[in-house]
């Protein structure tokens, strides 16, 4: 059977955050509370924990819904964290998400989000292109002020109210175990 070639693209987002690299790393890899910059989702990992090969799932704060699943392929604390990425409500091909952290000026962090293998023209490509700036701007706001921007807090409120009504059943967490 001939291989189907899909045009893919890469998107890169970068920001300087006025917070130590270790604190930023801790924020993007925490599993004890929802991560505000990931649209207030909670990260669930398979038993192996934060190591390459572990499965990852981004679940709603109450754990009932799963929006994103993937597998970790790189984890080099506190500099590089990457996993495959797939929206559970879409049939689009998987892409890759990589977070790169470098020590920045005066104790800050140079934070880069790279999204690779985005299939051109898919909903995933559009959502990741639009969402990339929101993710890293929210991360900056959380690290520098302790809270998400006003706009994002409104969005979290809307998701909390409308999520259970609007989210398709395929996204129920029982359909996306990590172990």
């Amino acid at each position, binding site marked *: 059977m001939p291989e189907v070639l899909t045009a893919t*693209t*890469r*998107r*890169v*987002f*970068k*920001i300087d955050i006025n917070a130590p690299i270790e604190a930023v790393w801790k924020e993007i890899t925490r599993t004890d509370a929802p991560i505000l910059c990931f649209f207030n989702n909670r990260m669930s990992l398979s038993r192996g924990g934060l190591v390459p090969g572990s499965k990852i799932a981004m679940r709603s704060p109450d754990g009932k819904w799963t929006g994103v699943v993937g597998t970790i392929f790189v984890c080099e604390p506190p500099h590089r964290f990457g996993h495959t990425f797939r929206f559970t409500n879409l049939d689009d091909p998987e892409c890759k998400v990589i977070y790169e952290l470098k020590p920045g000026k005066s104790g800050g962090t140079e934070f*880069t989000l790279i999204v690779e293998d985005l299939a051109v023209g898919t909903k995933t490509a559009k959502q990741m292109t639009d969402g*990339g*700036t*929101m993710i*890293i*701007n929210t991360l900056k706001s959380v690290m520098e002020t302790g809270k998400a*921007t*006003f*706009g994002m807090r*409104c*969005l979290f409120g809307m998701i909390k109210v409308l999520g259970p009504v609007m989210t398709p059943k395929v996204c129920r967490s029982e359909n996306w175990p990590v172990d």
Partner: protein
Amino acid sequence: MKDAALDRVFSALSSPKRRRMLDILQERSGITIADLAASFRMTPVGVLKHVKLLEKAGLLITRREGRVRRLYFNAVPIQLIYDRWTDRYSGFWTARMADLKERLESPGARRAGTDGNPSVDSTDASESQVTSQTERTRRRA
């Protein structure tokens, strides 16, 4: 975003050529300096001057991948400017009005407007619709 950073962004965006470069980078993410130069019939050295300005403003990211340097558009500074002056509520309406303006002023819409009613310029039509949209927004607020 500090004033010095804001100045760098606005200064970088003040050149039509650099704005066009960002358009190209948005469409063709990860192209090389040589590719970008070819789009402008400029030498890579000539383009490099603009690339450095865009990079300094944070609007462009260069990454060395193997032996080539690839260029990526970074929308983050623009989002930060947007966030500074726009809240969720006004963002909703401005996005709708911008969509409406774009739709009505596209070449297809202009043709349809002229064919359907030769006496009405579609630009005027779009402006009047945008105005009425503003009016509705004001009344709801």
